[in-house]
């Protein structure tokens, strides 16, 4: 355990004390205590930046479950540190924001902050652990914390359903990922990520390469809300807005991106990896941005926008993976570079936009753009913030989003030169789809700003009278917006410090330690740069389409997208379907009728026993022994069988008892024949007593009702009955044959020999019962004792209803 381990675990430890703060210091908003932690962690982490910028890594070991290969290695490189800084930095801002967003009264703040801290710790663990299983452990914890936060207002049905949906989707991905990691372990013998990367060639040569990749990608895609797993994210907007800003735009949903980036050194270069990551990413970009435009809830717009932006980063990582084929030339690495740069930018502008929407919601009581409008004079600061955030998202100069959007275009254009992976014929799709999606991105960015702040002010539709937010709610988005501007003007601040080491972690073969990429971020590429014209095109078409929005919006109805995302139908169908299927399957077999249960069980027994009899061809009868059987023996056996068969057909109790009695007495007769007088005597006694008791009891009972049932039903029963009898007979006869071949003496030989010598008894059966196996007898006496005590208590004691549990 090092300080680093403790830093990662600190949020969990701190979370334990939150309920105490909440309970014993109710006058101070619990958030103020919480705020301390991410701030300290951020300071602690940022001091590592110089080391990391130099291309070094920091590692610390701790053995957790070494027998399963699970060790808590902290591994900090550029990629990990970048995420950790986002987690703690934005975490601190979100906590500050939440203090004003969630009032002291009526909110279960202790729950809220416990979940939030749990998430923070888990997320730090995901990005800083060097062991896949530890990563997995923290990964599932983020899913759990996320679900709890979505369900924070659990009295709302939508919150509960959203929580369940996010949990099912992300945990499903998590389970798949677990299998994928296990595959990697089986291939390489380790869960240590760096060791797996060192063995990437072994992995690539393995037949398990593709399954491992697919399963791990399933984990990444579900977490990062890639199509078609994105459906949980819009529903996750039921969480309080600080949570949406934090988990569902800035950090947790980027865990999938982190994983793809982290695993790139293992999988990059494979065509499947390229197509899945880049292809699904670019499609998600389009799907998200296209669907964002049709939303009327500001948070839903942002949710689809997040899906779309995540798709964009994902596709860039996919395109960047092609650089593995080209010796990691900067020309191809630029896509990866753009991915990391945009990841940072997205966290800043999307975080601030979520906070802006939170402010609007908080101050007006609604997020519906049909009710909002004309807030520009009432909330000028919020308006300014929204302009910065939305324009950056739309890719407008001079904000950071412009730079990364242009770089995205560069990456798309460079992908045209990729000749691997059958790209020749399809490569053009990437720039085309990317450009179209950017147009929609522009449109919804404008919707967020102008539908809210300009147009007609409609106070009659609002629950509250809106005014500017308190300063505490404004500070966090102001900081983020300031970063948007600063990074827009001075992207060089990020280049060597954090982006280079992060990209280096994704393409470790590309650089030696301390070197830098030849990639630079700059706004002006010259008049002949196609990126410039793509951006101008986006703005021009975007403005036209925004202004004519009402004219072409019908297209969503035409495509049946206006009610809900069509993927949701699949989810609903599956969820309902599984319950319906479960009910059907269960009601078919759990009929509540004993006869059905016995029938099912006997069918199974007959089938499986006869199958093994046939499979091993064991059925054999030794006819050699038959000759010695005396005639009277056959008669007794016949009567025995006849009496047994009669029992179920008798409809009078007394007669049935007598038939059963006959069976019992015949058993006694068998004992006599086999020279076991003690047993015969016992059997006679037991039989007499039980028969008498039965007769006594039945004297007091009403007539046995005749049961009428369909003949067909009886036929199946008959078959089953015969089947059981036949099975037992066949196996018994075969056993006798096997007994004849037994190469050993039975232990009874020892008993016969020693019963007098060692136990001093002539009657071997008795000696076995009371001495050789006296323990059995002793326990059987106990059984009888328990049975009688049980009967006594059953007669004496009856509870009414079910008061006690």
């Amino acid at each position, binding site marked *: 355990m090092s300080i680093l381990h403790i830093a990662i675990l600190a949020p969990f430890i701190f979370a334990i004390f939150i309920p105490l703060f909440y309970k014993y210091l109710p006058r101070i908003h619990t958030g103020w205590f919480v705020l301390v932690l991410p701030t300290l962690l951020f300071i602690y982490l940022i001091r590592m930046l110089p080391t990391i910028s130099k291309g070094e890594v920091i590692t610390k070991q701790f053995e957790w479950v070494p027998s*399963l290969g699970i060790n808590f290695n902290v591994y900090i490189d550029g990629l990990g540190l970048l995420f950790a800084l986002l987690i703690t930095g934005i975490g601190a801002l979100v906590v500050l924001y939440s203090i004003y967003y969630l009032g002291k009264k009526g909110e279960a703040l202790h729950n809220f902050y416990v979940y939030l801290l749990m998430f923070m710790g888990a997320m730090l663990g995901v990005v800083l652990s060097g062991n896949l299983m530890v990563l997995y452990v923290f990964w599932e914890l983020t899913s759990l914390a996320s679900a709890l936060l979505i369900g924070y207002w659990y*009295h709302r049905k939508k919150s509960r359903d959203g929580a369940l949906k996010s949990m099912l989707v992300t945990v499903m991905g998590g389970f*798949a990922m677990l*299998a994928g990691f296990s595959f990697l372990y089986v291939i390489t013998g380790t869960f240590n990520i760096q060791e797996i990367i060192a063995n990437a060639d072994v992995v690539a040569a393995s037949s398990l390469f593709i399954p491992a990749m697919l399963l791990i990608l399933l984990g990444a895609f579900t977490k990062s809300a890639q199509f078609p797993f994105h459906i949980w994210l819009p529903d996750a907007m039921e969480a309080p807005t600080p949570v949406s800003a934090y988990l569902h735009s800035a950090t947790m949903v980027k865990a999938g991106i982190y994983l793809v980036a982290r695993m790139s050194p293992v999988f990059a270069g494979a065509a499947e990896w390229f197509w899945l990551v880049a292809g699904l990413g670019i499609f998600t970009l389009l799907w998200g941005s296209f669907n964002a435009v049709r939303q009327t809830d500001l948070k839903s717009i942002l949710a689809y926008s997040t899906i779309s932006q995540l798709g964009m980063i994902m596709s860039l990582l996919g395109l960047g993976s092609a650089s593995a084929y080209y010796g990691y030339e900067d020309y191809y690495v630029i896509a990866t570079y753009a991915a990391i740069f945009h990841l940072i930018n997205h966290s800043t502008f999307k975080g601030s936009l979520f906070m802006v929407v939170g402010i609007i919601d908080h101050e007006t009581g609604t997020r519906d753009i049909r009710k909002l409008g004309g807030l520009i004079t009432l909330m000028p600061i919020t308006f300014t913030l929204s302009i910065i955030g939305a324009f950056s998202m739309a890719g407008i100069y001079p904000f950071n989003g412009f730079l990364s959007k242009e770089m995205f275009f560069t990456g798309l254009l460079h992908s045209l030169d990729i000749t691997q992976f059958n790209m020749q014929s399809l490569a053009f799709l990437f720039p085309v789809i990317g450009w179209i999606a950017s147009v929609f991105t522009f449109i919804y960015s404008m919707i967020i700003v102008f539908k809210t702040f300009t147009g007609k002010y409609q106070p009659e539709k609002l629950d509250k009278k809106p005014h500017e937010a308190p300063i505490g709610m404004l500070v966090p988005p102001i900081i983020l917006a300031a970063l948007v501007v600063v990074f827009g003007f001075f992207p060089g601040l990020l280049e060597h410090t954090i982006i280079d080491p992060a990209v280096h972690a994704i393409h470790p073969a590309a650089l030696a330690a301390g070197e830098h990429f030849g990639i630079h971020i700059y706004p002006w590429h010259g008049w002949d740069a196609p990126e410039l014209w793509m951006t101008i095109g986006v703005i021009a078409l975007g403005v036209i389409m925004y202004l004519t929005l009402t004219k072409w919006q019908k297209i969503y109805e035409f495509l049946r997208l206006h009610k809900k995302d069509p993927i949701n139908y699949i989810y609903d169908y599956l969820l309902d379907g599984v319950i319906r299927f479960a009910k059907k399957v269960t009601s078919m077999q759990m009929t509540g009728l004993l006869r059905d249960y016995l029938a099912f069980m006997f069918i199974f027994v007959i089938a*499986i026993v006869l199958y093994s009899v046939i499979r091993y061809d064991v059925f054999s009868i030794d006819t050699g022994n038959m000759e010695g059987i005396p005639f009277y023996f056959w008669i007794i056996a016949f009567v025995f069988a006849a009496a047994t068969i009669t029992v179920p057909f008798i409809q009078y109790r007394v007669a049935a008892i007598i038939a059963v009695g006959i069976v019992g007495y015949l058993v006694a007769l068998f004992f006599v024949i086999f020279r076991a007088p003690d047993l015969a005597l016992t059997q006679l006694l037991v039989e007499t007593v039980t028969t008498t008791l039965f007769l006594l009891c039945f004297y007091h009972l009403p007539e046995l009702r005749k049961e009428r049932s369909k003949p067909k039903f009886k036929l199946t029963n008959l078959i089953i009955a015969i089947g059981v009898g036949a099975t037992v007979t066949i*196996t018994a006869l075969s056993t006798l044959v096997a007994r004849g071949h037994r*190469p*050993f003496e039975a232990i009874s030989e020892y008993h016969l020999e020693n019963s007098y010598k060692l136990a001093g008894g002539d009657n071997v059966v008795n000696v076995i019962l009371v001495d050789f196996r006296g323990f059995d007898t002793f326990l059987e006496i106990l059984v009888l004792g328990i049975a009688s005590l049980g009967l006594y208590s059953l007669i004496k004691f009856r509870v009414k209803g079910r008061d006690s549990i």
Partner: protein
Amino acid sequence: MNNLLLLPVVIPMFIGVILIFFVKNIRVQRAISVIGSLALLIASVYLAFAAYESNSQVLTLELGNWQAPFGIVLVGDMLATLLVALAGIVGLFSLLFAFQSIGEEREKSYFYSFFFFLLTGVNGAFLTGDLFNLFVFFEVMLISSYVLIVHGGTKFQLRESFKYMVINMVASIFFLVGVAYIYAVTGTLNMADLAEKVGVIGQDGMLNVIAIIFLIVFAMKGAFFPLYFWLPNAYAGPPAVVTALFAALLTKVGIYSIFRSFTLIFIHDREFTHTIILILAGLTMIFGVLGALSQFNINRILNFQIISQVGFMALGIGLYSPLAIAASVYYIVHDIIIKAALFFTAGATEKVAGTSDLKKMSGLLKTHPWLGWLFFITAMSFVGIPPLSGFFGKFGLVLGGIEVGTTLAYILVAVVLLVSLLNLLSMMRIFMKAFWGEKNDTEPKITNKQSIGLLRPIIPLVALSIVLGLGSEPAFQYALAIADQILDPSIYIDAVLSGK
């Protein structure tokens, strides 16, 4: 020779008998029960420790000094003693929960006696090294369970326990048939001796059929598909503490018996027998969880979840690799603890809500946060969310399955993950319906404060699950040591037959 091996059988038996004499005095009964249960726990933990210490040696006791295989022998290897120790732990907490929950009437009707008789049977079944003696201990266990399941004698209990009894009788008859057959073929009943002789005769003909018969018998006890019909309703009748005890221990006896017989005796044709175990395990998981999803009553959901978990625990035997067996052993340990906790919380929830019908519950988290969060943690551990104990067992099975690498193993890994996801859905349904949601009109039957007493025995169990998860290294090493021991049957055989 180790006479102490008898303690886990003798202590509960004598306590059970002594309690009969104090049936009207609840306080004395409780005092004796707690002392007895503590003594049992200490003895069994000591034995588990001794079995671990002596490492490759196995503790044995030849009863009446009759040399194995001619008399009856008790055998305490690491697996058996571990399970006995766990039975001791669950026994103690069940007792504490019973004090809070079952009510005076039951206490005055010999409840505690039956409780201890049940433990006698369970412990004996774990410790015996003789096949017929196993049958007898099954009888002790079953007769006690019959009484406990019908204890109170409501109409529902009487109806459902009848089915339970009949089906278990059928199982007992098949057991006897199996014992008769195997005695005929091998001439012995001692398990170690059987293991040796089956090896000599060769497990290709009749012995395979006999193996299947025993598999059927133990699968009935363990509630495997398609032999579990007796369980879901019968377990819904008796008080929560009884169901918890049954859920934690009874099916484990079935699984333990499969463990014993299919890692010691019938190991020579695994292509056949262990494949069947794998298939049954997979189907049991699936049908169990489907049953759970079909229900709307907490108790019944959990009853079906007993079944689904049985499949997980049997998986390791079928896969038959050190890792998979260790994972199964770990899973059994986890399941014993978490099943008890789960059924206790369900019982407490029923007490609070006055019903076990989920449709009539809502918003309990607001009024009963302790109960709600205990349930949540227990449920998450049950589902296998890391770092709780449930995760490591599942993970071991997944990893073990992938290591084995046959098509069937891959399919079962997929089943494990899919069923785990459905387990999550089923647990979240309970949590969302009972604890989340708007507070409904019905007043809670007992307040948050009053419910604390009920929760007290649950907290240590949940804590144990957390400790077992966070500190899974020693636990897993223990499980791996057990796997090593049972994968080398000669250790067991030599220990038992060394006096020959």
